[in-house]
């Protein structure tokens, strides 16, 4: 990559070419009503599509294709063209609703489609699967969290079998109470990297839109040790890119 990397890219160690084990990671983006994590997803779509070795499989529950197309266009990435070149596979799941007794079947069918697409494409390319977002997948599955978790576990197997990267968005503030909290905990357990967006403690501001906390569980390094890291910095979202900076480092 010849572009200057942003703070986010550095942290996600996607630039690191020495580590062949970069394949097969699960990235979880957690957000809340005040700060949407969608911009992280847009950044990653552009990042993965900019390398010709990558294919992106996008499973959309939240917005139609035109929405992402227009946003990414402003960032300099033409999704429509990528879709035509078969570098982007877009599964529009906005209207997916599994009937009460057919939730498992519906999710199995979805997994089947994803599996086929990955199998066909992964012989010579790296496949990245993006799911936007799992909280809506729960709604489509009529509230059956158990089935959604099973689905995610199955998708996780693709990271080892085919070396896919999986990226998904979860609305963390939905689950703050009681038993429901197991769902984000399970997802965080599965994830290799968790990216969390939050507002500043003092509320919304015009020049800082929020803060990002990135937990990277780390991979087994050459010496055999795990290198886990936590990063925290702030961001401001613009039309064509996002500024990332450490608190106090902005003029």
């Amino acid at each position: 990559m010849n572009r200057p990397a942003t703070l986010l890219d550095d942290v996600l160690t996607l630039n690191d070419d020495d580590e062949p084990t970069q394949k097969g990671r699960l990235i979880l983006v957690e957000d809340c009503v005040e700060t949407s994590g969608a911009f992280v997803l847009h950044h990653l779509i552009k990042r993965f599509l900019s390398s010709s070795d990558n294919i992106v499989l996008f499973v959309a529950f939240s917005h139609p294709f035109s929405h992402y197309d227009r946003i990414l266009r402003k960032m300099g990435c033409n999704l429509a063209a990528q879709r035509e070149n078969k570098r982007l596979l877009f599964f529009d799941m906005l209207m997916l609703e599994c009937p009460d007794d057919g939730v498992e079947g519906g999710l199995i069918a979805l997994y089947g489609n994803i599996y086929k697409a990955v199998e066909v494409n992964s012989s010579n390319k790296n496949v990245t699967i993006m799911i936007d977002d799992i909280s809506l997948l729960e709604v489509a599955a009529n509230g059956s969290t158990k089935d959604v978790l099973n689905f995610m576990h199955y998708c996780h197997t693709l990271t080892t079998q085919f070396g896919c990267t999986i990226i998904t968005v979860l609305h963390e503030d939905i689950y703050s109470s009681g038993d429901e909290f197991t769902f984000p905990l399970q997802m965080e357990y599965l994830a290799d990297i968790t990216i969390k967006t939050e507002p500043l403690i003092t509320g919304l501001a015009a020049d800082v839109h929020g803060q990002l906390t990135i937990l990277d569980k780390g991979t087994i390094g050459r010496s055999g040790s795990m290198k886990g890291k936590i990063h925290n910095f702030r961001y401001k979202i613009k039309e064509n890119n996002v500024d990332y900076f450490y608190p106090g480092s902005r003029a």
Partner: protein
Amino acid sequence: NSTVAIITRSLHSLCSILGELKFRPKLNISTSMVLKYYSMVEIGDQKYTLLGDKLWLLLKFERVVSHGKFRLPPRLRSPDLKILGGGFHLGSLVMIMEDTEAPHHMLLLRTFMSQGLVHNQPVLYASPSKNPRAFLGTLPATLVSKDVKSIKSEAEQKDLRIAWQYKKYLEENKPPIDERDGKVEYCNDFDLRKPIEKHLIAGNRVECVSLLDCSSLAGIRDSCSKFLSQLPRYDGNITNAGRIAIQSFCAPQCEYYDKEWDMLSFIRSIKSKVRSSNAVAFLTFPASLLSTSVSKRWQHLADTLLSVKAIPDEDKELATLLTGYQDMLGLLSIHKAARFNTQVPVILDATTYSMKLQKRRSLVLECLNQAPVDGSGGSSGGCSSSSNTGALDF
């Protein structure tokens, strides 16, 4: 008798500053509760409020002082929420969290529906009552031009007496759509004391659905689907826009009230359908009747999210702090403003407005809190609506 503002970046340093101040006999610091809707922190018996990225100590004086002044900007003319940047986006889902103690969301709902009827836009109305059609009689009529003029400056009238009188006769015959710079103006003032013209609600101009009839939400879903299928999205054809108004969607008297996932599915499906059609959906719901988790899911689904809160009567402390307190009905807060085709969030200059009735008949929204101060400068007192190049004026 001087006013002091203390701005710090952390509670820790604030506490240490206060610790010192308490021991200075010359400074007389007393605190009082300011505006309840701000997030507030109590340390000991002192109260602090958080605004933007600065922390304010609440001291008892007439204005909250920063490095500027707390000014009330000029009153906004129309309750059509131009403050959101030009109106509601076509294709958006607007949700309003009700206050179970007060019906102020109805004012917004009525204005929304009347606006549509006045401009010949199809309206679908659903409510948890046996006879939703009866509600139509309570919709307000537009404020007639001559009344609007009388609210404006008196000086104008005196100088242009004869000309104004002449104008008066001409304007009464004009249709309610004003033209400004060639653009059709879709925002009107409404007179809440006058019911809407009968011919606008006659016959089947407004489709009414009772939510009490729907045990499984299938009925309302079908009605909405049919309604929206007549309004497909062709770029820029605003005159054919439609409005869906759903009142108190999760009211306990509805049979589907305990079916959380069904309600969520409905909201999700209506959001996608509205997205691809020339319509706006307006849905009010008593958020406190839902569990926190379900309420958060609804809030995530909304494109634009507002909430209304009642203002307690006879609150002496509030009366000293807010000018025009006696006229205030309630507070309107904007939690989320729709932004389509862009990832940049909307940071509004102000997120809380007071709802007032002016001359007992027109709804006026006034800005209350101070604009978030950005690093470069002083306070930006005024409340200008952010220009939103993507928005369609509605």
